[in-house]
């Protein structure tokens, strides 16, 4: 009799979004997906989180916008995007259809702008969820990012909750004193999940020209260099919220992904790693399956938070 081949189940439910596998493309590096679809056909991605969409078009920051750092990079794109209307007319129609689940990253400068984007996406076919990027500067509060203040976070989340019936994640900034407090505030205000981390604020100086390397002076650090920081924060957040966590930050291998899951994350997203290798999601998926077979795991829930005491 043929031996029954054991196939582990990679499916996970992220805040009500059913994913074929727990690997997503992080918002930003992936743009609106068109270029990576040409290159990889979205192969082996459970979900994609498209680049931040604002109510009106944003021009973005002056160049240079990116710079390499040891095991990572800085970026100061400035959330350049064509705005909600153009996203709905030009980008979304090309993304609909079978394939990975689609989440839209939402950005704004005021609570009203976030709420406006959420209402504009309400009831639109082809969108499976939202991700609120609360690392944006809050113009009414002197430009301090929404995500640095638990009270401001609560206000944005509550406003979006009133406008959307879609599941939504709140994406936390690591540039805060107490990430748990921000996460709890998001949960209490109605978020369905937490994603973290966004980039860590940093800069570089071009010594040949005696000036900051990036056009915006400051940028956000990402890539393998930030992985241990992101993992620590995912661990801290998983401890204080009941809603699922999406782990992001420097993930380039299946082992990195497993570490986030063992810290308590439900799924993971890859950003900078896609620049190193656009086929990274396939490699991570293969690695996860190998691990599960070796360990005799039927699904990933068996190890979610497994490293926690």
């Amino acid at each position, binding site marked *: 009799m043929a031996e029954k081949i054991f196939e582990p189940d990679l499916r996970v439910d992220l805040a009500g979004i059913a994913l074929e596998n727990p690997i997503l493309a992080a918002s930003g*590096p992936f743009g609106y997906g068109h270029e990576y679809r040409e290159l990889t056909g979205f192969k082996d991605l459970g979900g994609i989180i498209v680049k931040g969409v604002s109510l009106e078009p944003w021009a973005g920051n002056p160049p240079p916008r990116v710079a390499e750092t040891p095991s990572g990079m800085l*970026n100061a*794109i400035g959330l350049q995007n064509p705005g909600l209307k153009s996203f709905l007319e030009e980008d979304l129609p090309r993304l609909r259809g079978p394939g990975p689940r689609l989440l839209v990253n939402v950005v704004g400068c005021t609570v009203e702008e976030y709420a406006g984007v959420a209402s504009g996406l309400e009831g639109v076919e082809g969108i499976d969820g939202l991700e609120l990027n609360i690392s944006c500067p809050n113009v009414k509060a002197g430009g301090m990012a929404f995500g640095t203040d638990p009270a401001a976070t609560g206000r944005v989340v509550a406003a979006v909750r009133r406008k959307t019936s879609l599941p939504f994640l709140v994406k936390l900034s690591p540039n805060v004193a107490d990430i748990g407090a921000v996460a709890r505030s998001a949960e209490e205000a109605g978020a369905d999940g937490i994603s973290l981390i966004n980039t860590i604020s940093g800069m570089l100086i071009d010594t040949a020209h005696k000036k900051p390397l990036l056009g915006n002076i400051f940028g956000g650090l990402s890539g393998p260099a930030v992985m241990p920081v992101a993992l620590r924060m995912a661990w801290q957040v998983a401890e204080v919220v009941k809603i699922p966590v999406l782990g992001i930050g420097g993930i380039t291998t299946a082992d990195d992904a497993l570490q986030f899951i063992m810290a308590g994350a439900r799924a993971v997203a890859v950003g900078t790693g896609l*620049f190193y290798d*656009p086929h990274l999601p396939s490699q991570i998926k293969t690695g996860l399956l190998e691990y599960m077979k070796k360990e005799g795991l039927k699904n990933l829930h068996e190890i979610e938070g497994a490293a926690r005491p």
Partner: protein
Amino acid sequence: MSPGQSNMLPRPFSVYRADTLSGEISLLIEIKGKGTALLAETTPGVSLKLLGPLGRGFPDLPPRSLLVAGGAGIAPLAFLAASTAAPRTLLYCARSSEFLVCPDTDLDLPGLSVMEATDDGSRGVKGTAADLLSNRIEKAGAVFACGPRPMLAAVKEICSRAKIETWFSLEERMACGIGACVGCAVATTGGYRRVCRDGPVFPAEEVIFDG
């Protein structure tokens, strides 16, 4: 082109030569920092990851074109120069002779005349690309240029005064290289555009140089 390490961004390079029969391409790489140094160390037989060709190249050369190359900017212009046999002139400029890295034999092409200039006069005429260009611009069919920004800004000024069609191949720091991340944006009259996808070749009149 990836410098062979997993935690490094890929590096953008122009195609320097392509042999359609053998399927071989050549790159001409100036060692600038970590990535190009690693690439220079690779030995025959080592496999490297390469993604391309990417973006939009130069349009066809009209007769009497002037090609202006500054330093490593020679790579795409040598490729362009080899695309036709029509009379054309290459103005090849650099700080000093050691930065004129392109082998003479590669520029020995039918119909191509080559003029060289260095800032310090160590090879060719003593002077800049702008000096060479100013003397020849009147009869030019079109101008194609690649090199440092100050050089391109000077070329733009000369060409727009003479009302000659001009194309630039631009450089900017990149991350994805395919048009997704908007990391390689340059300021143009049409807003920020992506060097890797919308370029690297742009009409000179669209490019905005800021100081």
